[in-house]
């Protein structure tokens, strides 16, 4: 099984660990470095073209305006929309996370025979703003095009009153959107 390592001095007797390490760090394992050294004009271009094709296929889907479902924590089971995503994390949070604005309390079902006062009361939405790890979100195929970028910012979570004003503003925007009747999936409670 032991493959002969290439650049080993004859005086050394290689330990099994060294043998294994040499094999796995041999040039065949890193194709990019080996191909760049030999025939740079011919071998690099097909690989670059392949890489561009592959790049075109992969789609990043955790983007702003994506509707997601929060999976953990106090708001588990609630629907939210990604406002801003931090793929590589920040210094405080070294993991991929995103700022979401979600629904704490869904609007109730409005029926036709409700009076205007009752409709207004039933259409109320209570919102939350939170930084959530990607692992605690389930992305969906839905999007919600509400402009929350200027209201919900990274620093609005630092103090309680900033958070409250952000929630109040998103509540207003969500309620407007609910009243138009669009994005009905987002405003219905997830049954589980």
């Amino acid at each position, binding site marked *: 099984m032991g493959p002969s390592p290439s650049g080993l001095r004859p005086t050394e007797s290689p330990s099994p660990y060294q043998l294994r390490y040499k094999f796995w760090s041999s040039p*065949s*394992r890193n*194709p990019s470095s080996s191909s760049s050294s030999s025939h740079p004009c011919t071998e690099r271009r097909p690989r670059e073209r392949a890489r561009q094709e592959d790049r075109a296929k*992969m789609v*990043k889907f955790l983007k702003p305006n994506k509707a997601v479902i929060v999976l953990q924590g106090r708001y588990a089971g609630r629907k939210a929309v990604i406002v801003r995503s931090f793929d590589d994390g920040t210094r405080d949070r070294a993991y*991929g996370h995103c700022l979401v604005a979600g629904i704490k309390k869904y609007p109730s079902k409005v029926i036709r025979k409700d009076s205007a006062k009752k409709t207004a009361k039933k259409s109320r939405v209570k919102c939350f703003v939170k930084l959530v790890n990607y692992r605690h979100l389930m992305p969906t195929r839905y999007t919600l095009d509400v402009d929350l970028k200027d209201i919900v910012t990274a620093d609005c979570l630092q103090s309680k009153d900033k958070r409250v004003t952000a929630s109040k503003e998103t509540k207003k925007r969500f309620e407007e959107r609910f009243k138009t009747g669009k994005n009905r999936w987002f405003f219905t409670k997830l049954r589980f």
Partner: protein
Amino acid sequence: MVAAKKTKKTHESINNRLALVMKSGKYTLGYKTVLKSLRNSKGKLIIIANNCPPLRKSEIEYYAMLAKVGVHHYNGNNVDLGTACGKYYRVCCLSISDPGDSDIIKSIPGEQ
């Protein structure tokens, strides 16, 4: 029948291609890393064993649908998939991020 019976020949070719990916490409094994690779769009092909729990299988397929990444349902259980990867443990799902010298990404989703 469309794709019901997987012949022995194609099954062996998948194993050969997987072995080549293991040797020369980049991959991750396991459910958590598969989801991670899908989220940051590093995965190019996902392979799921046939005894993967159905909820997990549909979750991986949904993520892959969002990321527009191909999913291949391996014709074997997690023990077989682990053996095909050359590992001594069970592998339920794996994600290939760089196929290396293998043509697994071009050939396998086309077959399905």
